[in-house]
């Protein structure tokens, strides 16, 4: 079956900085893959590149069957990104926010109501302005926006940060539920204990590359010469390491 995410020697720039300097990654449908690596390793940029928000300038990049190098826009409707920035409007209520982003991508009104219920925001908090919420409650609102979209690919950037124990359990349950319904999840997290137990496998990131655990250099000719690459030649790191 065609992988949901297929990246080969993918390079992406933030301004002049090559945040991604050669990513090899394949994610199959229904997988939960954890991206692990130090700060600045390129985890956030990788998630944003998969969402079609950061252009891939070299290498291959196919997500959900759409070639991102041809046009990154069609993939966007089908992914859900939960990032550091919430994308919410402080002056609007929780319900208004979720309804706006839900309706923006033609979500079913029933899905929007269900999403609010799933994250436990259908009670008193429903009509509170987002600007008055705690960080954890905002994140739950963002999660409701994501749920309402019913994305095929979930891209979660530090989803556990700022959440209390109960909400983390709730989030993990939601991720599990989405995967059972056929979604694919790519997440970056520092909560390694929790994330590793959730993930099917772990991919290491460092210096904007998928660090090859068994030692690897890109086998195909599309990769640029990398004189300082520390790794010796070896097979491509399609599955770098199974948790």
């Amino acid at each position: 079956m065609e992988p949901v995410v297929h990246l080969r020697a993918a390079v992406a720039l933030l301004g002049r900085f090559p945040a991604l300097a050669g990513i090899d990654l394949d994610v199959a449908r229904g997988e939960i893959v954890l991206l692990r690596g130090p700060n600045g390793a390129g985890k956030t940029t990788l998630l944003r590149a998969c969402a079609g928000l950061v252009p891939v300038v070299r290498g291959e990049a196919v997500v959900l069957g759409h070639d991102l190098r041809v046009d990154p826009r069609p993939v966007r409707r089908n992914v859900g990104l939960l990032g550091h920035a919430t994308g919410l409007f402080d002056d609007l209520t929780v319900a208004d926010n979720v309804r706006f982003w839900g309706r923006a991508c033609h979500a079913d009104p029933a899905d929007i109501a269900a999403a609010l219920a799933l994250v436990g925001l259908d009670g008193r908090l429903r009509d509170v302005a987002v600007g008055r919420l705690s960080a954890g409650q905002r994140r739950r609102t963002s999660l409701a926006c994501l749920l309402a979209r019913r994305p095929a690919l979930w891209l979660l950037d530090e989803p556990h940060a700022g959440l209390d124990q109960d909400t983390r359990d709730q989030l993990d349950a939601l991720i599990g539920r989405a995967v059972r319904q056929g979604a694919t999840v790519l997440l970056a997290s520092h909560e390694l204990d929790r994330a590793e137990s959730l993930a099917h496998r772990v991919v290491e990131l460092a210096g904007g590359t998928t660090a090859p655990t068994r030692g690897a250099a890109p086998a195909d000719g599309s990769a640029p010469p990398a004189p300082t690459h520390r790794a010796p030649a070896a097979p491509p790191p399609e599955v770098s390491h199974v948790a």
Partner: protein
Amino acid sequence: MWRDAALVAGRDLRVELRSRVTTNQVAPFSLLVLILFAFALDPDRQLLERLASGLYWTAVLFAALLAISRSAAIDETDGVRDALRLSGLDPAGVFVGKAAAVAVVLLALELLLGVGVVVLYGVELAGAGLVVVAGLAATVAVAATGTLYGALVSGLRVRETLLPLLLLPVLAPVLIGATRAFEAALAGVPADGWPWCGLLAGLAVLYAVAGALAYGTLLEGS
């Protein structure tokens, strides 16, 4: 596109209603401008009445700068920009929606300023048809131009200072046209004013089309 426009316009207006910045700050500010004109020009009623059209539209432009800046700020944060691109909303629809919301806010401010001019400057209303048509055309022109230029500077650290520099020269023809049309209406010679309405309507259409075409490029390019 129209569905997306309605959605975005509804959102922007709801943000305006909830935050109350327009009613609590922009509206009092624009009335203050009218009062400052009286101080600057010596409240000799004849002078203020004669200049009323020009002063009115100058005050509208100042208020519009604030309203446009507010509108641009709604979509400015990183998260919202990303979410907009992920949402699949038609960029042209987003532009039309934002411009429509700005136009509604401006119309409310213009109404308030109109009352202010009548009360404070002693203007006698005349030529209502011309006033309404010219006012509507000028409002749409200002809203469309402002939304386009607001997107040009959105997200920049110097947005607040760069926006007036870029926008005011472009709005100069709107100021000229709207002022002449209002003067003609108030002087009781509406025939002189209608050609200016044509200019205003042309500007409105031109910038609305330009904005709808350019908005996607601006959303992607930064």
